[in-house]
């Protein structure tokens, strides 16, 4: 009588060694998959925190205020740590194998990265630049892939943050956000709305096969982006209509309390 009960005459299946091999491979695969899912959750949550921090910025095309840089730095470090912890799991053959598991985190990271880039430079970060950032996050020799899809979908989400930024600045300052430092003649016609429309037109022109999942995702996000543009247009319309009543030469009272900026720190 053996460990399996009272029945006599057991035979070992001749295929057991083969299945033992399969078992260890599959277990390894599933464990790796779980690790990546968890890291992706961490990266998503941390990127969201960074974006919240950046929403306290009030000016464009200027260095991010020191206080915000300082409070965001540990978060960027956390993301780097999360990516490093799984970067060996995402190399070679496995780069695309687990792309469904990591894509959520990478898109959210891309959203944070491109939002900060826009605030600093008033321009859209390129796929090359962004790829360099994600590659670095994996640590030496283990670059993290930023696919075109991750890049595009991250940029889509970033436009939502641009809208929030624009409305907040208009609410607090009564002006549409635009870079103040440039020479008037060159720069005056570029503001968040024209930039948003620019990004929208470029994104709209991207031609993706109708059967791809990227196409479905982009169509959904394009609707959101159009809504964002309309929200900023409506806010700007409101400023214009009210501004039209302004007598010639009227200037806002410097002491006018409401328009003062109230800050967190």
């Amino acid at each position: 009588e053996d460990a399996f009960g009272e029945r006599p005459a057991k035979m070992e299946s001749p295929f057991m060694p083969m299945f033992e091999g399969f078992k260890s491979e599959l277990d390894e695969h599933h464990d790796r998959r779980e690790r990546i899912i968890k890291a992706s959750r961490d990266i998503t949550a941390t990127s969201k925190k960074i974006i919240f921090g950046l929403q306290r910025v009030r000016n464009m095309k200027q260095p991010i205020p020191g206080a915000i840089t300082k409070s965001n730095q540990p978060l960027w470090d956390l993301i780097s740590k999360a990516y490093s912890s799984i970067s060996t799991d995402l190399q070679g053959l496995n780069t695309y194998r687990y792309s469904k598991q990591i894509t959520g985190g990478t898109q959210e990271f891309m959203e944070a990265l491109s939002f900060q880039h826009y605030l600093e430079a008033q321009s859209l970060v390129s796929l090359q630049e962004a790829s360099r950032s994600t590659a670095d996050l994996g640590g030496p020799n283990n670059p993290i892939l930023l696919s075109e899809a991750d890049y595009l979908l991250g940029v889509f989400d970033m436009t939502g943050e641009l809208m929030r930024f624009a409305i907040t600045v208009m609410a607090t300052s009564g002006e549409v956000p635009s870079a103040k430092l440039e020479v008037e003649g060159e720069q005056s016609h570029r503001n968040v709305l024209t930039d948003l429309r620019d990004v929208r037109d470029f994104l709209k022109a991207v031609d993706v096969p109708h059967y791809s999942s990227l196409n479905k995702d982009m169509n959904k996000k394009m609707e959101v982006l159009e809504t964002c543009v309309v929200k900023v247009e409506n806010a700007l319309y409101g400023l214009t209509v009210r501004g039209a009543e302004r007598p010639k030469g009227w200037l806002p009272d410097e002491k006018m309390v409401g328009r003062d900026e109230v800050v967190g720190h």
Partner: protein
Amino acid sequence: MASNTVMVDSSIFEDIQQKIDDDTAFNDELRETVQQLNKQVRSAQAALSQVHAIPRDQLAAHITKTQPLIHAEITTISQLATKASQQPYYKWNHVWTRSVQDACFTILFAHYAASSALLTIEDLGARLSIPVNLKDRDAFHLTIEEYLLALISLIEELARLARNAVTIGDYSRPLEIARFVNNIHAGFQILNLKNDILRRRSDGIKYRLKEVEDVVYDLSLRGLVPKEETKDEEMKT
């Protein structure tokens, strides 16, 4: 089922049934109290909606008249707290949280209407005689989320009040409200929110801020901003 060694000891399911029945009965009791609270909240809201139409100098009197309605809410919340404390807080919290938020809103609004000041979460807890943001023990209390959601309702109501104040000729109210909403907005901006109800509702604050700022702009364009405001401000800060 006849056997001396049975698959299911029937006491297992009797015990579970008993627990479920107890829970159902407890839930029914809670809901009854919550229904009563909802009714009182609606009455208080109806009374407070007059704030939009009453001149500033008659407001204190009006608010005083609404106090009994608010006290009714507080009494019911006390009863709720007594009942709810018999069981784990978060097991039942979903039953009353919306109603408690609405009640908190009425108290915050009544206080702001009369004094242009915000009750802190501690002030509010003291009014309701319940602990706030409890962490060390499992009892009925007011959570941070509930306070913040009531605060967002207050912001929404004040955006409406800013315009209606102009309608009845009160030009200083909008400036007060603008300062207040600005300050609250700055506070919300430092919070890291999840994709939950608090995030969704707080997203609207910037639009309320914009509405209020627009009123201030309209007034300042017409030179209607009261002079003494600036002095007042300094005194208050």
